[in-house]
């Protein structure tokens, strides 16, 4: 199994407990708002520390409360696309894309092509539309050459044509780049269309 996750943590007043294992491909974490989907992604990315549990991705232990393993976020190899784009406001789009970039420059050209953001490189993030910012955020995460992708409601707050656009992008990442994806949604249609496997929380 590519993802083996078993975590528990109190978040506010609620107890978030999540346990699943999933193969590569696109795994959908599906459930109502407030069920702890985002918290689970944060724990896998290393931004939130579980009280108890174990996270293994592709055979690599990222967290294990029993043996005291807890890799910092920068060493987990997660490409995280947050619910908000979280572009760095003081950097132009190009610098945002290159922030975590590893590897050669062709990668940038190829990805900006695939995502159709080549014409935005010199812009400031605040001048981008919602769909543009989302695509830049996805490209930025991909350019860090992650071992897997975490997508938190990547289609929320977009109009229908933009949703279609981003969904196509996600399908290409899944099928062409063959990058394992863990995606959070509360929308049944999205889950049905994109997922190779659905985990209900």
């Amino acid at each position: 199994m590519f993802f083996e996750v078993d975590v528990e943590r109190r978040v506010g007043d609620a107890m978030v407990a999540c346990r699943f294992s999933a193969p590569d491909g696109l795994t959908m974490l599906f459930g109502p708002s407030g069920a702890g989907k985002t918290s689970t992604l944060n724990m896998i990315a290393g931004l939130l520390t579980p009280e108890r549990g174990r996270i293994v991705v592709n055979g690599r232990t990222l967290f294990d409360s029993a043996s005291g393993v807890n890799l910092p976020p920068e060493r987990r190899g997660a490409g995280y696309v947050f619910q908000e784009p979280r572009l760095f406001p003081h950097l132009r789009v190009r610098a945002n894309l290159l922030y975590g970039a590893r590897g050669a420059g062709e990668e940038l050209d190829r990805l900006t092509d695939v995502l159709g953001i080549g014409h935005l490189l010199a812009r400031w993030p605040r001048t981008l539309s919602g769909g543009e910012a989302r695509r830049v955020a996805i490209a930025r995460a991909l350019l860090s050459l992650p071992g897997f992708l975490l997508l938190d409601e990547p289609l929320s707050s977009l109009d229908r044509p933009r949703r279609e656009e981003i969904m196509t992008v996600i399908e290409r990442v899944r099928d062409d780049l063959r990058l394992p994806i863990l995606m959070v949604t509360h929308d049944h249609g999205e889950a049905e269309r994109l997922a190779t496997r659905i985990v209900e929380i």
Partner: protein
Amino acid sequence: MLSAEEWGIVTLSLKVSGVAILCSLPLAFALAWLLARRDFPGKVVLDGIIHLPLVLPPVVTGWMLLLAFAPQGPLGALLIDLFGGTVLFRWTGAAISAAVMALPLMVRAMRISIAAVDTRLESAARTLGAGPWRVFRTITLPLSLPGLIAGAVLGFARALGEFGATITFVSNIPGETQTLPLAIYSKLQVPGSDAAILRLAGISVLLALAALIASEMLTRRAGRGLHVL
């Protein structure tokens, strides 16, 4: 126009304040970061100690500096051991008292701007492979730059006006520790110096105003391209 003596007073003031702010800037920013971003036991006490010079009578702050930096005092003895010298009655001592008095204002301005940096941007940077130090350098520092600059300029203006702690700590020695406010005070004791006082007071106003305007302009420039997640 200014006499040579008055020019000397102005340049000494600028030197004392400039050195005071440049040297205390890293400490002020580190303290501001600590107070904005970390919880630790004794945080309230540290906060209180930093702010003490703001509420204490300046003469008390000056007296405490005098105790600390006297040759038998803890810091004074250390300086003699390390450098074989003292800051008492020297312009360096004036810079120390200016820095201590300016520190709370600097820390306040910087703390607010650090707290305003969205930690979600910092965690995004972490997931992109940046370690804590790189995140600080490339995200936290540039995004809090307006506050850093505003704090430094505010501190500089405060240091220019520093009087009570300085005169208590390093006395009022022309050419060494006699900054603008101390010089004005001295001239007030001498009948018939109204013209000189007017010039020095005018320069104080001009310098303070220039500092505030510079701070405003720099803040705006640093703020370009910011806002909106």
